[in-house]
């Protein structure tokens, strides 16, 4: 419990730190968090998959992200995984950890994207190290639910 609290609080501080100061734009701050997430994910997945075998295919990798990675980092699984089988995957989390203490509904909705940037990077970093190059974006319409969209870059 205590180590989860530390992770939650340090993430909170990371967000507030990059958004401090007048000089920095919203996009720049989000990019910084995303980069932190990427670097974290890139290294983390190496450690987490040290006991697992090789993955069968891309979908297998996505299932790994939804189950094992999410349980390790956020203590729950992704609630729903959808794909168009053409390289787009949508991960629904109905109760995303970083938003679950903030609101249930639309309050603070405008600030919610700040708390998703790190995680987008985390997913992108994990996938990058597993050989999947992609773009990860996130969307919230109602806290604490959110969805992450993974667009795999081919070729």
């Amino acid at each position, binding site marked *: 419990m205590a180590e989860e609290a530390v992770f*939650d609080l340090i993430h*909170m501080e990371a967000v*507030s730190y990059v958004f401090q100061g007048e000089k920095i734009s919203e996009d720049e701050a989000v990019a910084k968090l995303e980069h932190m997430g990427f670097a974290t994910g890139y290294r983390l997945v190496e450690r987490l998959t040290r006991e697992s075998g090789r993955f069968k295919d891309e979908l297998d990798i996505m299932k790994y992200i939804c189950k094992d990675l999410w349980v390790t980092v956020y203590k729950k699984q992704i609630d729903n995984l959808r794909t168009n089988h053409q390289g787009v995957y949508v991960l629904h989390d109905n109760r995303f950890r970083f938003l679950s*203490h*903030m*609101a249930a*509904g639309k309050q603070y909705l405008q600030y919610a994207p700040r*708390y998703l940037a790190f995680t987008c990077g985390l997913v992108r970093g994990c996938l990058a190290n597993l050989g999947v190059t992609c773009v990860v974006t996130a969307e919230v319409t109602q806290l604490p639910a959110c969805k992450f969209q993974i667009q795999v870059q081919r070729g």
Partner: protein
Amino acid sequence: MTIYNLYIFDRDGQMLHYAEWVRKKQSGMSRSQVSPVDLREGYLTYCTNKYRLHLFETPSRIKFVLNTDAVATGIKELLHQIYTQVYVEYVVFNPMCPLSKPIESELFAARLDEVVRQSPAYASRPA
């Protein structure tokens, strides 16, 4: 038994939150009995002939003040629950809530209401 209202103050005495459930203003009434009991563990209560006031103070000196009728029981446990399961979860771990500013989170207010309404002291109130 019934629960009237709740105040949360920070260490400087600034009010962070106020909530009320049942409140019948009874001004000018005489206090027949003022008796602090159980001074240990940051919990204090006194009783008049009309109501009972409960004060719970955390190690960080946040104060929770709850008014109930004179016979309500289990309020110490309820205040501890409000502190750990509502205040800590939805204020301390809410990045949108600056500490030592009045609480604006709607989720906090909703959870607080839920916890109070579910407490035996609230449920068993007479019609």
